[in-house]
């Protein structure tokens, strides 16, 4: 499934002799100092114009910054070019920034700086993004330990090894307060003052042709009725026109990735539920597919069908919910949102019966799914699918021609797909701007290649097109669901082999992506052959899509900025991780 890396390596070696210094499995290793020129060449000459994933990992002797390039060109969509840069200087790591080539590098490089302390030379605003300025250390480095650090990774030894003892001793008891907290040298927590935020705000004067007026900064969030969670945005306004948006992220940050590295491969599955809590099934899907690729695991047919059914049900409810919330932001007083929630309830009932939980489903397993479903469940699922089909039409009738909606949505937040690709935007938002790109089609996983469905696209990428895009995609999902329900084998195993509770994953490194309802959900995994991931990174669609918010909103009105945020459809659980 990989691209012909050899040919690309040869071409690069011809253009830049000595730039590709090594080949590490499926990854090209590029010399750090020549990274920008090589990247520019890859983008402009070879058509790999899409930097979707950028992260790093910490090895004992070096850092590695990894990049995944893909192409929007119809002939080379599909597998992309994975390459990496080695940074041997662990004391003072530096890598050239790619922000001048890809805007999508902005947030992701900031995240790498935040988590690993790797400086990106030339980054215009290299500040912490998920943690706060003043946080001590870079938590994804292997030598960083959290306050109640116990062991490098699970399975932990028993906290209650001698059962005679009266009570188990928790980590909080065993470790005294402050005894295991790392402070930087000379740091006194009692003297600590927050770093003033004023430096994030640009000069606060607007020159309006000789009329000097004040730039008004309005702070939206983290507690605000319409930021979809705890997102904070500092919005600069000239009158009511947006001049800048500075998202402040991380209010929901829990270092998902460190938790993952401490955890067992299987133990991560329930944690992925909490990423995008609107579509837990698909997060499971993405993670399980990634690990299976690493393991070379096969999945029985019935399980594949169940996965697709769950995944597509998730997609339909996500899109309906996104539309409902969109109207909520437009001030339609909850009515469409509650209609969408009604449909979601029916789907959640199905999830509950299949998995035991409504939201935190924990349903997928390596090589299968957790539980089988009954014939009756399939019958009811078909009913729900028919109902969803009807309800999508009902939404269409009620909302598509609403004049106020059209007046507010047409032309607002529009962006060309070329620009979106530069910002790394994926999913329905990108397709609504006209690029036919769906990972289910271009790099099929599971059994998506056996289904007959279209990838709808629209033209302008404005809010109205995003709405129509979600509607059209929900319809396609219903189509897939119908086919899946028709063809699912009546009986059969749902798990390949024994249920693995603690599998060892062969050593390797890969970036695997799936078409999550919100965009490209990628997992970058490094295994050292043990029972835990050595490095576990989530490339979440919401996080990267959010990077385009400012560019989409500047020049529009304050009211529109909120609606644009809603139309990108983010979930903060996934943004902040």
């Amino acid at each position, binding site marked *: 499934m990989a691209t012909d890396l050899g040919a690309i390596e040869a071409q690069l070696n011809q253009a830049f002799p000595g730039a590709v210094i090594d080949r590490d499995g499926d990854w090209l290793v590029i010399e750090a100092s020549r990274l920008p020129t090589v990247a520019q060449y890859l983008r402009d000459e070879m058509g790999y114009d899409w930097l979707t994933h950028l992260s790093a990992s910490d090895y004992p002797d070096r850092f590695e910054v990894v990049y995944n390039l893909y192409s929007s060109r119809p002939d080379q969509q599909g597998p992309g070019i994975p390459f990496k840069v080695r940074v041997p200087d662990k004391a003072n790591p530096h890598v050239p920034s790619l922000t001048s080539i890809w805007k999508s590098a902005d947030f992701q490089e900031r995240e790498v700086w935040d988590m690993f302390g790797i400086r990106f030379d030339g980054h215009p605003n290299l500040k912490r993004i998920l943690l706060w300025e003043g946080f001590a250390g870079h938590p994804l480095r292997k030598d960083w330990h959290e306050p109640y650090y116990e062991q490098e990774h699970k399975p932990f030894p028993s906290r209650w090894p001698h059962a005679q003892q009266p009570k188990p001793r928790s980590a909080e008891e065993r470790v005294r307060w402050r005894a295991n907290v790392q402070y930087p040298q000379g740091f006194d927590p009692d003297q600590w003052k927050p770093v003033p935020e004023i430096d994030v705000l640009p000069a606060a004067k607007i020159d309006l042709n000789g009329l000097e007026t004040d730039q*008004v900064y309005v702070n939206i969030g983290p507690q*605000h009725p319409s930021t979809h969670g705890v997102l904070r945005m500092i919005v600069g306004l000239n009158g009511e026109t947006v001049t800048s948006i500075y998202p402040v992220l991380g209010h929901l940050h829990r270092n998902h990735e460190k938790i993952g590295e401490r955890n067992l491969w299987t133990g991560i599955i329930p944690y992925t539920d909490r990423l995008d809590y609107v579509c837990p099934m698909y997060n499971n899907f993405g993670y399980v597919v990634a690990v299976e690729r690493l393991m070379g695991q096969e999945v029985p047919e019935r399980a594949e069908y169940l996965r697709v059914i769950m995944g597509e049900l998730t997609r339909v409810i996500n899109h309906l919910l996104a539309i409902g919330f969109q109207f909520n932001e437009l001030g*339609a007083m909850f009515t469409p949102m509650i209609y969408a929630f*009604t449909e979601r309830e029916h789907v959640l009932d199905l999830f509950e019966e299949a998995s035991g939980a409504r939201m935190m489903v924990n349903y997928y397993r390596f090589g299968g799914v957790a539980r089988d479903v009954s014939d009756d469940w399939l019958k009811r699922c078909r009913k729900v699918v028919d109902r969803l089909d009807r309800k999508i039409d009902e939404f269409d009738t009620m909302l598509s021609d609403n004049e106020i909606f059209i*007046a507010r949505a047409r032309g607002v937040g529009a962006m060309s797909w070329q620009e979106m690709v530069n910002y790394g935007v994926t999913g329905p938002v990108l397709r609504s701007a006209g690029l036919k790109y769906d990972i289910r089609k271009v790099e099929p996983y599971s059994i998506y290649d056996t289904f007959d469905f279209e990838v709808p696209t629209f033209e302008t990428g404005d809010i109205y097109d995003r709405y129509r895009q979600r509607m059209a995609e929900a319809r396609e999902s219903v189509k897939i669901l119908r086919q899946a329900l028709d063809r699912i084998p009546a009986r059969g195993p749902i798990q390949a082999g024994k249920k693995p509770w603690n599998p060892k994953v062969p050593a390797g490194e890969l970036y695997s992506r799936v078409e999550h309802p919100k965009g490209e959900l990628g997992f970058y995994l490094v295994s050292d052959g043990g029972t835990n991931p050595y490095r576990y990174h989530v490339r979440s669609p919401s996080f990267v899509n959010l990077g385009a918010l400012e560019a989409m909103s500047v020049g529009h*009105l*304050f009211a*529109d900025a909120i609606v644009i945020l809603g139309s990108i459809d983010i979930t903060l659980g996934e943004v902040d991780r």
Partner: protein
Amino acid sequence: MDWVTDFWIPVIKAIVVVLALLVGGAYMTWGERKLCARFQVRYGPNRAGPFGILQPLADAVKAIFKEEIVPHHVDKAIYLMSPGISFAAVLITFAVIPFGPQIDLLGRQIGLWIGDLQVGLLYLLAIAGLGSYGIVLGGWSSNNKYSLLGALRATAQMISYELPMGLALLSVVVLAGTLNLNRIVDFQGQWPLIVWQPLGFLIFFIAILAESNRSPFDLPETENELISGFMTEYGGIKFALYFIAEYTAMVVNSAIVATLFLGGWKWPAVLSNLHPLAGVALFLAKVLVVLFLYVWVRASCPRVRYDKFMRFCWKFLMPLAWVNLAVTAVIVALI
């Protein structure tokens, strides 16, 4: 001077009407929640009493017993005064609205209205203009960006929409030939004015939606952008005052619509002649119909964006109201 006719009867009428308005406003919150719930396929409040009928009471108790918080960056006097201004302006609007015929009570002729003002229609406009002060001052004195933006929007919106509203009222005046609301109701004994002034009715209804900051024109509040707009910094009983002022305003505005366009208590005369109280019942029924319209609109329309909303007023509604007035005037002059 006859103290009973000139003083006590008006005072008692005023007290009764104010109490009725308070109850009406409170129950409007309940009614709206119930109706919206039905529009949204849910139940709405149903815990406090049968059908949640005691919900407004529970809300009031909650609001009253909340801690009074006055943020220390506010202009205290104005901050505390503003909800009161809002509420008072709403209550005194009702003073000129006739809600029934003259009745015999204890040997006295009592008209079911508080003041029979010769310029009643102008009074409505005047008080509508005063009503915006509660919101403007509340927003300004809160010393908060959201509040100020809300207050500015409210001011611009209310001043702008007073014009089409006034023009729509002028068409009514041209037809009825009087500014007195009692005369206007009398004029509608045969047919309600909505028959002659369908366009005027629409313009007026849109304008009062905007005047009372109701969806889809609830721009001073716009919870999605401005959190709560001008009332962001208000809590407890002060918030409750704003809140009930808004709902009482809906009731009062509905009463105005019912009086001016739907024939008031009089139309259809067959029914209102049966019994004096039948007139009152007719009036109430019409008010409820308009209130239902209010909620219906709210539950089904997204909000209009601010600039489009102002453009709609000045570039569409105003010219339309002028044309409507001119056509009405020409027809009246010719007949």
